[in-house]
């Protein structure tokens, strides 16, 4: 089979599967009484099977259940592979995907994002003695990161020179040895390194301004304004009632190994100032 033929077949299969979704999806959900919800298949603490009960558990599962409860329907959790998070929604096999899904321009072309409920950040850490204060001070400078990561992308977007390694530990070592002016990684990793540097090695500090924002939202079909409005409404409600924070505390908060604090509120994407990932 040649490639063009193959692509065409895929495209037609996609179009065929997407057809039924043209009806009002919110109505379908309400009449079926179930909200079909894609999550990770095995990514703790977001969604993974509990070894004892064999039920899917995690932050995304709880969030999905909370949304369904607010809508007055039952949640049906469907574990999918990491790559399938977007296509499953596009093909109409699930209604929403709650799977730590970061907003990117290429994803936004294919699916509709809800208002983000969390902002993942890529942070820059530098030796404490470094005079830099914002990411603009590091344009053109050598910054270390793990290869192929969003961190590397953020360095490129900032027009700094990336110095990349296979893992974050090597990148950190390179900064400690003065081979790069700073390093970029997600909040969890950089916090850990900064804390570690207080007891040994060169002391590091975090640049307050994030290198990159990754708004995490819920994915759903495009052109379903009723469903989008409903999901956003439910998210805002769960946020104000403290429900999202409660779920967060349970899976990612201080009592867990992740020790992360959620300071973000559910806000429309348009109110965020950030450079979206291509």
């Amino acid at each position, binding site marked *: 089979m040649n490639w063009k033929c193959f692509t065409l077949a895929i495209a037609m299969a996609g179009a065929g599967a997407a057809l039924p979704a043209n009806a009002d999806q919110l109505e379908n959900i309400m009449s079926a009484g179930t909200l079909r919800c894609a999550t990770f298949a095995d990514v703790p603490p977001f969604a993974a099977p509990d070894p004892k009960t064999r039920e899917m558990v995690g932050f995304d599962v709880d969030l999905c259940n909370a949304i369904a409860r607010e809508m007055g329907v039952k949640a049906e959790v469907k574990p999918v592979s990491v790559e399938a998070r977007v296509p499953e929604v596009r093909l109409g096999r699930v209604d929403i995907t709650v799977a730590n899904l970061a907003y990117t321009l290429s994803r936004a072309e294919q699916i509709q994002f809800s208002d983000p409920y969390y902002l993942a950040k890529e942070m820059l850490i530098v030796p404490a003695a470094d005079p830099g204060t914002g990411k603009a001070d590091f344009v053109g400078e050598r910054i270390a990161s793990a290869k*192929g990561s969003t961190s590397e992308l953020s360095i490129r977007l900032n027009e700094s020179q990336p*110095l990349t390694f296979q893992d974050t530990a090597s990148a950190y070592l*390179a900064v400690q*040895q003065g*081979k790069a002016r700073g390093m970029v990684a997600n909040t969890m990793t950089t916090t850990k390194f900064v804390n570690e540097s207080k007891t040994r090695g060169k002391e590091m500090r975090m640049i307050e301004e994030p290198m990159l924002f990754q708004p995490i939202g819920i994915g759903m079909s495009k052109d379903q304004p009723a469903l989008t409005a409903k999901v956003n409404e439910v998210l805002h409600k769960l946020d104000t009632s403290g429900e999202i924070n409660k779920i967060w505390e349970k899976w990612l908060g201080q009592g867990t190994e992740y020790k992360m604090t959620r300071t973000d509120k559910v806000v429309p994407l348009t109110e965020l100032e950030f450079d979206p990932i291509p």
Partner: protein
Amino acid sequence: MSGFDLSAILGNPEYAAMLLHGIEITFVIFIGSWLLAMTLAILLLGLRFSPLRFGNPLVAAYVSYHRNVPTLVQLMLWYFGIFTLMPEGLASWLANHNAETIFAIIGLGLCQAAYFSEDLRSGLRSVSPGQMEAAQALGHSYVSAMRFVIMPQGIRNALPPLVNHSVSLFKNSSLALIIGAPELTHAVKEVENLSFRTFEIYLIGTVLYLFFSLLIMMVGAYISMRADPARAARA
């Protein structure tokens, strides 16, 4: 994602520039480490054949370290380990002058010197001792016998393994990506990351490596032929 499409990478000036830069650094590493390795190999060979008492075991130790420790580990030892022992001034100078590429040249060059020196030694050893005796019987001095009788044959014998090891050195330059040197494999992975066209870019990388490796082998074959016209005529 659409189907197989090489032009999506080759037609993109940004990706093409990344690949070109990768090729450039790969050659900087290859040529730099080859020159370092050959110079050192000749010095090691001289030491090995010298009457110095510790010459032989010293070279033997050098060779066994470099041949028995993975090249990857040697590179990491240089970049992350020995770097920290360097004086502050030198270290910061290196850090500002592409320390990654420099350490790749040093690490690969020192390692390859062990192989090159053994190639040269086996080439010289393969010349029968009778030749030296015969040359001396004909009135050649030791130096003159080496210069006109032993060396030409020894080097000729050493050429094929030297070419093989040169090709492996070229391929081993891809190990430099582990210490962040922006060589060809590094560039290939980078393009893969940005374009998500995994198959196409690895195919391009494969073809590039194959092309340059064959080129090095052809140059090697040409030099071998020039060095041994008699064998070339027989072949």
